[in-house]
């Protein structure tokens, strides 16, 4: 099973500079474990205490995973996953 995962610039230190990598998994959670196995350190940047980090966005086929089950979102062969850091900040 192959799922393409698009990696944002700030996380490419974990993928040897690659913009996209392939991974496998029937759910987002399983996919992240598979990513971690090949690109150690990535999981910590995506998850915090077992949940997706508040300021990391993950999309499956253009849907924000928060709307389709979060880490339980189901994945199948050929799905496109995109990781993007939130663009956010504030004066406090």
């Amino acid at each position, binding site marked *: 099973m192959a799922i393409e995962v698009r990696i*944002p*610039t*700030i996380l490419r230190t974990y993928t040897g500079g690659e913009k996209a990598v392939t991974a496998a998994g029937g759910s987002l959670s399983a996919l992240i474990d598979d990513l971690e196995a090949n690109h150690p350190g990535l999981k910590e940047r995506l998850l915090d205490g077992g949940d997706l980090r508040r*300021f990391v*966005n993950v*999309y499956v086929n*253009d849907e*924000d995973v*928060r709307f389709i089950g979060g880490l339980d979102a189901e994945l199948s062969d050929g799905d496109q996953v*995109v990781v*993007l*850091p*939130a*663009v*956010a*900040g*504030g*004066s*406090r």
Partner: protein
Amino acid sequence: MLTIDRATYDAIVAHAVRDHPDEACGIVAGPEGSDRPERLVEMVNAAGSPTFYEFDSTELLELYKEMWKRDEEPVVVYHSHTATEAYPSRTDIGLAGEPGAHYVLVSTRDRFTDDGNNDGPVEFRSYRIVDGEVTEEDVTVVDELPARG
């Protein structure tokens, strides 16, 4: 150093003034690796707040897909502070996710008095934010960006 054309500079300031007292935000995209801020994209502040800004997650994805299609990257990421100086806050630094971008901070705090726009100055400053380190840089405003090398 950030080199930016006058029209884009003015448009960023106008956006910040228009959205005051909420924070305004957006990017200026340019060809990958060019360091040329060419295409201004004003974003909606999904937080709609005077002390916080965040791009809507769906609009964020659309923005990046459009940039990837055009072989662009965010050359400038800008937002406004409406009651404090144009310097990155701890939140700004912690959330800065584009190590290659110029982070532009605009402050509208001196532009407005309690009874409205007093045409005071708008502060416009630029920074690099990499691994939690903030480095201010000069801003050069030109009539037009130089021809592509």
